[in-house]
């Protein structure tokens, strides 16, 4: 279930587990399953951003698999309880959030309106970047058939896209890709959760024999 959590931040897993084994406090390893689950939930609640199983394991100083099991159980519990909160996987981590259907009352309480949406031009540009990344500005404009790169700046300002190095071609143009913020704002576990671009083919071309 937590494929994304596993793949996220793979970089220094090894060092972590080594540290974990060398941890001097033996007693820590004897946390009961229930307690571990409860600590995991508390950490996910307190975390500012979606937090990965690996990171939680580091904090509590236990094996990642144990945390993954705890998370799985928590997700089931939340699902079963059917309360106002959802326990979900997003942007390679886990998060506790309200259920979307309560938005009206929550907004009434917060006295907030839905924030300004992206313009159609920005959304189209974002779609091109999401599916073609890493992609350069000329390539984006070519697909969109327009000359103005202003939408790209908007997306950079909103931190939805980030520079992903330069393309080794004439002029070494900057390449762009989507950011973690993009996953968060669009409620995606990871990029593989985006529907395949070919699925839009039928919509686009209409019935083709």
């Amino acid at each position: 279930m937590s494929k994304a959590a596993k793949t996220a931040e793979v970089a220094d897993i090894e060092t972590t587990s080594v540290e974990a084994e060398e941890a001097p406090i033996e007693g820590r390893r004897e946390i009961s399953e229930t307690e571990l689950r409860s600590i995991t939930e508390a950490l996910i609640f307190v975390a500012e951003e979606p937090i990965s199983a690996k990171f939680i394991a580091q904090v509590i100083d236990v094996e990642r698999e144990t945390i993954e099991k705890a998370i799985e159980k928590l997700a089931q519990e939340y699902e079963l309880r059917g309360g106002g909160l959802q326990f979900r996987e997003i942007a390679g981590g886990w998060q506790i959030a309200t259920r979307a259907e309560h938005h009206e009352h929550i907004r009434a309480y917060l006295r907030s309106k839905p924030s300004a949406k992206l313009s159609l031009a920005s959304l189209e540009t974002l779609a091109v970047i999401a599916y073609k990344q890493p992609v350069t500005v000329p390539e984006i404009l070519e697909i969109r058939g327009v000359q103005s790169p202003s939408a790209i700046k908007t997306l950079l300002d909103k931190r939805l896209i980030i520079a992903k190095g330069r393309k080794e071609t004439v002029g070494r143009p900057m390449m762009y890709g989507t950011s973690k913020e993009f996953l968060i704002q669009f409620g995606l576990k990871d990029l593989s959760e985006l529907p395949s671009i070919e699925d839009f083919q039928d919509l686009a071309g209409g019935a083709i024999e």
Partner: protein
Amino acid sequence: MEESTQIEPTAEPTAEAAEASAKINVAGAQPEIASDQDTDQLKITLGEFEGPLDLLLYLIRQEQVNIYEIPVARITDEYLRYLNLMQELDLTVAGDFLVMAAQLIELKSRMLLPRDPFAAAEEQEDPRAELVNRLLEHEKFKAAAQMLWSRATVEQAVFTRAEIETDTNNPEVAVGLFDLLRVFQQILARHKEEVLMEIEREEVTMAEMIDRLRNMVRSAGELNLIEFFERAQSRRELVVAFLSVLELVRLSEISLVQRETFGDITACAVTPAT
């Protein structure tokens, strides 16, 4: 900007496109788009076009034709008509719209050329293939943008907890009682200063200034006005002093005398006429 929109004649015609080319149906077969649309309606529509591909897709849908069988001549005419309209409405027609117009006209002329009757069906490249591919690609991303839009809408309805207060994001919390006292004293001190300033501002009223001038003139019999004005400590006081001189002259309590040209002006007490 030219390089990104130029049609590269590299695209291989797809089987479908080649098949479609066999039954080209240039203008006339399809119902014409209503040409007497009022301008208001068009204004709204025009605003939605993000670029020439968008406009082209819209026209093709209006014409209700298969995207693989674009009636180039008619669509080109429609496209140019829209550009004219945009210009009439004083909308700046972006360069990319004009580039597309040029490409459409070129395409239209290429469609008029007779096909090589001896070439095999597969080799007959449909001149529209490149444009069709671009339109399809564009449409795909439009659909993807739609999907992103609905995802974002759902996400906006989901809330996470507000920021938790910690010493890092709110360092003021980490103070003791004495810090609090010190801050309170600072506030008191600042408050005192403010009160002082207010008194200063109210220092001299018009009535006081008139009294002062009257007394000075009376006690000395006469008064050099430069001396009087120099006593003023602020701009405001100076103004009040000047006004009080005018006032006493008006009331004929003093008269102003200048004994020599460009000399000092002296205020003299006027003995009330009996």
